[in-house]
């Protein structure tokens, strides 16, 4: 009796990328099929995207297959998973750190982009630096304030005085 105990995910990163590629390919296919395909001789706007999406789905499915292993549990353990375990051991704190970093970085940029026209360069840059500072716990208030002041000055110097873009400096 061969001791195959089902299908094992040998490489989690590859498995998830495969899912991502397949999903994006299917989404693209759904959208692209609504465009005019045209003929091979006179290609419409849908022709090339449909081909590409089909290739992407195929590559995604291949990636999923490669990431799986049909082998016995112990064989999978001593090859793929041991290598994977090294950088995939993320506890809850790592996930929290990743979400925290993503959230504050994106929030800082969105607030900056929305407020720039209304409050001018100096205040918008200050807001960006202050919101971004929450993404890293080791930054003190004094450091944040100094960086905000310095970057406001650099922003005005390079983009307003240097290149001469029509940014407002103050509200």
């Amino acid at each position, binding site marked *: 009796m061969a*001791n195959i105990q089902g299908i094992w995910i040998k490489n989690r990163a590859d498995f998830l*990328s495969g899912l991502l590629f397949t999903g994006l390919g299917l989404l693209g296919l759904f959208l692209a099929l609504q465009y005019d395909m045209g003929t*091979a001789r006179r290609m419409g706007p849908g022709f090339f995207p449909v081909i590409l999406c089909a290739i992407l789905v195929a*590559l995604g499915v291949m990636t999923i297959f490669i990431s799986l292993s049909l082998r016995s549990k112990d064989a999978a353990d001593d090859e793929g998973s041991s290598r994977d375990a090294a950088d995939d051991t993320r506890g809850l704190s790592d996930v929290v750190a990743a979400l925290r970093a993503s959230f504050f970085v994106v929030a800082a940029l969105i607030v900056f*982009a929305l407020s720039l026209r209304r409050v001018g360069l100096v205040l918008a840059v200050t807001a*960006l630096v202050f919101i971004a500072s929450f993404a890293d716990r080791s930054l003190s208030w004094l450091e944040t304030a100094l960086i905000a002041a310095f*970057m406001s000055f650099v922003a005005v110097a390079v983009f307003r005085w240097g290149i*001469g873009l029509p940014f407002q400096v103050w509200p």
Partner: protein
Amino acid sequence: MELLDHLALGFGVALSPSTLMYCLIGVTFGTFIGVLPGIGPLATIGLLLPITFHLPPTEAIVMLAGIYYGAMYGGSTTAILLNLPGTAASVMVALDGHPMAKQGRAGPALVMTTIVSFVAACFAIVVIAAFAPPLARFAVRFTSAEYFSLMVMGLIAASVLVSGSLVKGLAMTVLGLLLGMVGQDVTTGTPRFTFGTFQLYDGLHFVIVIIGVFGLAEVINNLALGDRRQHFTQKVPWRDLIPTRKDLRDSVGPTIRGTGLGAALGILPGAGPAISTFAAYAVEKRVSKDPSKFGKGAIQGVTAPEAANNAAAQTSFIPTLSLGIPGDATMALMLGAMMIHGLVPGPQIVQNHPEFFWGLVASFWIGNLLLLILNLPLVGIWIRMLSIPYRWMFPAILTFIGLGMYSLHMEGFDVFLAAGFGLVGYVFIKLRCEAAPLLLGLILSPLVEQNLRRAMLVSRGDPNIFIERPISLAFLILGVGFLLAVLAPGLARTFRKWSREDARTGR
């Protein structure tokens, strides 16, 4: 002498005081931002590109050349000191450069890379002057079928080179091609993948994608890593910066061999610089009397790939400019930037805009010279910059990203897009999907589709046109060859494993 005339024309364009100043600014800023850890050459160039968009074409392109060299030099600095290669091309430099740095010989490694880069660039510029015009004359006869096949070959070469799985590399390339479809279709005007967003009608600006996927994603990743990110605290005394006479003597052979290999392989579209560094390193290891010292801080392992990289970077202008097919992701970025300044690459550019073409080639040489003059005395400062704590740096990087993206069209939408691509890029890092092929796909996408359409129109819908035309067929065969070259060892291993397992389980 046609060759000298060309170069004289180029230097005439590139050597005015104002262009020199912009080149100097470019080199300084490029190095300055390029050496900051956690921000690779691609992100560096992407960050500084928006500044050049607001300059007149010649100044902008000369400044680009400066930024390019500064960023690449900054990239090798972080590769050597922190073992963080930002592009495929600097992987090999880190292999022996980082061990040298650990032995306290970071200074000689950095100084030698600067000198060697310059020597290689001097040789490669002559190669360009000699070969670009004939190649352009040859390429004038290319039809859309040849261009399509050439681009397919380039894209395959780029996906083959990624570290990790080949299938993922190919998928990222296809994803890049699809991202390039966003916006109005050129032929029919139909909006594609725009989700009803008016701002997307013009397509995705490649700088936004680069800054998101390479710049922002790196920032998020570094912040999420917290205390585990790379630190550099080591002190490098000034007198240790100077290479010994032995370093110089040991580098002569590798430099010559690396330059030759790089200049020859740089002409390959899709993968020139990266492939040439691998080849140069392998050759050095083979000709060395003592191959065991490679990987442990051999100066030959630093100078040969660096010479190859720079020679290839120069000669990859031959495909980038005369065919419009970039040599690697960094070149693709430069190509995109040139297109913004109305410099549409292709065989015509060499003939119709010689002042642009030769000006650019000359300015790359000047960029390298300025780098040499600037960096020999400043190596110590660049090394010191690595000890700036990341918590001070990331707000500054974010500010530049925000301002740079906003200034593209003076509206907030581009900043939102960049933020979105930042998250996407972070997911790519976590899933270990290398993003460089995506970039090449994104930039080449409109050209690939246009040429496919034209070729199929000419052939009346018969796809055989790509294999009936000999040059086109040759490109496709080369592309398949790249795939097989990478697949063959893996397949052989898999078959061996299967047969071994059959033997084990089939008792």
